[in-house]
């Protein structure tokens, strides 16, 4: 339970990259200002569906991410809403272009980084977005979003059509079980309490939200009441919701498929140090490189599956 969902036939789980690709196609019909740029990974990022349907509004820029980001900025400055796609690690590594051309030029570029975290599996560290959240959230004006399921992804893409300012959307290669209910309404900047509890709060994002919900169920069997908050918007962070959880449960465990340095854990620590200092345990990739393996094996190895999160929570409560 709670590991990355295997790509089994008939599974209802959807990778957020797929939900993203579908949302682009759907919204492309009614939003002529929506354009997409790609750096030779359209099959992997799922921008290919948009490319087939709207070839005139799809720009294949080749393996040249720096130029792609600049071109996206120019399209935005001329009134378009560009979604600029690649793997999270590659596109955010062009940090200077994001900082200057996308953010400091006051654009509405949406950088879409797929293949978040160790959840990508076999390709190994070079293809894993593991420092991307830390990079993106350090830049003024940038919004950072990581949806936890298909409904949230669709809502986030729609919100980004009208949102003012640059944004980073982080999607997964692996399928994500649904954590929200049908009819879910995405609200940018608002955390979502999925499970109520009083002994500690597990704050998760993206691919670790499903496992965190299952971990809460495992902890409940031990008599531990864990609250679970899904933070889909890492910047701007929902500080009131997190401060309330800190006041009420006294302990915060952050869980992310990203380095613990500068990611969700870093953001929560920074915010609560000011707003409501309590004990915080940051859990994720513990300042080490990722490696090859199956997605399930890696989630187990890095203790990002339900068992692993529950184990870390028990240790934290000792």
């Amino acid at each position, binding site marked *: 339970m709670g590991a990355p969902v295997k790509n089994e036939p008939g599974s209802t789980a959807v990778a957020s990259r797929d939900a993203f690709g579908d949302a682009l196609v759907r919204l492309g019909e009614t939003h002529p200002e929506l354009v997409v740029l790609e750096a030779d990974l359209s099959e992997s990022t799922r921008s290919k569906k948009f490319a087939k349907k709207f070839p005139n509004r799809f720009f294949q820029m080749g393996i040249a991410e720096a*130029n792609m980001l*600049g071109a996206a*900025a120019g399209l935005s400055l001329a009134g378009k809403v560009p979604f600029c796609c690649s793997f999270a690690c590659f596109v955010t590594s062009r940090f200077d272009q994001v900082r*200057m*051309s996308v953010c400091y030029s006051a654009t509405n570029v949406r950088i879409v980084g797929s293949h978040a975290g160790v959840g990508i599996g076999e390709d190994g560290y070079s293809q894993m977005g593991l420092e991307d959240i830390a990079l993106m959230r350090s830049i003024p004006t940038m919004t950072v979003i990581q949806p936890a399921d298909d409904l949230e992804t669709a809502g986030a893409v729609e919100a980004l059509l009208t949102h003012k300012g640059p944004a980073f959307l982080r999607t997964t290669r692996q399928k994500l079980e649904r954590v929200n209910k049908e009819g879910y309404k995405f609200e940018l900047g608002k955390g979502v309490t999925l499970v109520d509890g009083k002994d500690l709060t597990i704050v998760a994002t993206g691919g670790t939200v499903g496992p965190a919900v299952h971990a809460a169920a495992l902890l409940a069997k031990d008599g531990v009441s864990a609250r679970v908050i899904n933070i889909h918007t890492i910047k701007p962070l929902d500080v009131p919701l997190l401060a309330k959880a800190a006041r009420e449960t006294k302990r915060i465990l952050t869980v992310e498929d990203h380095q613990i340095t500068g990611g969700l854990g870093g953001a929560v620590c920074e915010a609560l140090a000011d707003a409501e200092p309590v004990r915080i345990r940051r859990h994720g990739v513990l300042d080490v490189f990722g490696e090859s393996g199956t997605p399930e094996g890696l989630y187990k190895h890095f203790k990002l599956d339900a068992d692993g999160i529950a184990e870390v929570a028990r240790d934290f409560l000792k």
Partner: protein
Amino acid sequence: MPKDPDMLPESLESLKLRAFDLRIDNLTAITAAASGHPGGTLSAMDIMQALFFGEMRHRPADPHWAERDRFVLSKGHAVPALYTVLAHAGYFSRDLLPTLRRLGSPLQGHPANFLLPGIEASTGSLGQGFSIAIGMALASKLDKTPDGDKFRVYALIGDGESQEGQIWEAAMAAPKYKLDNLVVILDHNKGQIDGFVDEVMSLNPIADKWRAFNWHVVTCDGHDYTSIRAALAEARATKGKPTFILAETTKGKGVSFMEGKVGWHGVAPTQAQLEDAVKELNAAKAAFESTATVGAVGAVGRTN
């Protein structure tokens, strides 16, 4: 002379005459800031004036007009020259120029597009403005009407900047999309901070490189308005591919003790040096006025 009301119509004589004032205002602002880039502003000044007076369709009183032609200063450190040209074109008061680089001024040391009308992109990290210009040119093509592209886009890049890998990513991309509404101009002044370009990292053969990347390549004298205008006209007439203009320029052009000296890349003049420069420019302007049959220069164009 262009008839289009959205061009600032200018005679060659008035361009030449204003070029002296632009240089004086530019150096005065840099001296007041006590920092900046005299060499590369003076090499780029005539190209920028030629663009904003007689080539581009734009409305200084309506700087966000959707159909305006765009100018992206990719070599962002030359922005005092752009501020000066924009002020003379009527985008804002010339009184703003001496606030260059001061705390709270919209005239940042390098361009910030959200602070000042006429600045189309924030640049200063080299290699990036050109890519932004490509995105604008793509948008212009997307929005084209039976009358043609929505607008034209001009990007000015530098020699040292051409060492950035992103320049060549962008050079590869623009011909793919047949961006004949895009003109890239190289301010080929042959210097950069650490010395002569040929010593730091040679670009040669620069024109051949752009030809090999499938650009239409034109060469001009970047200080001769007839030559610059001819190159821009050729770019306008070129269909199906973008145009690269190799503008041969001189670093520090117009001030004898600055010309061709790479040491003037990023050092502001002292007050005494400014006075010498202004004296020289004013003398040259007076000499030009006495020979030119300019007549009522002030009545031509819409300058402030």
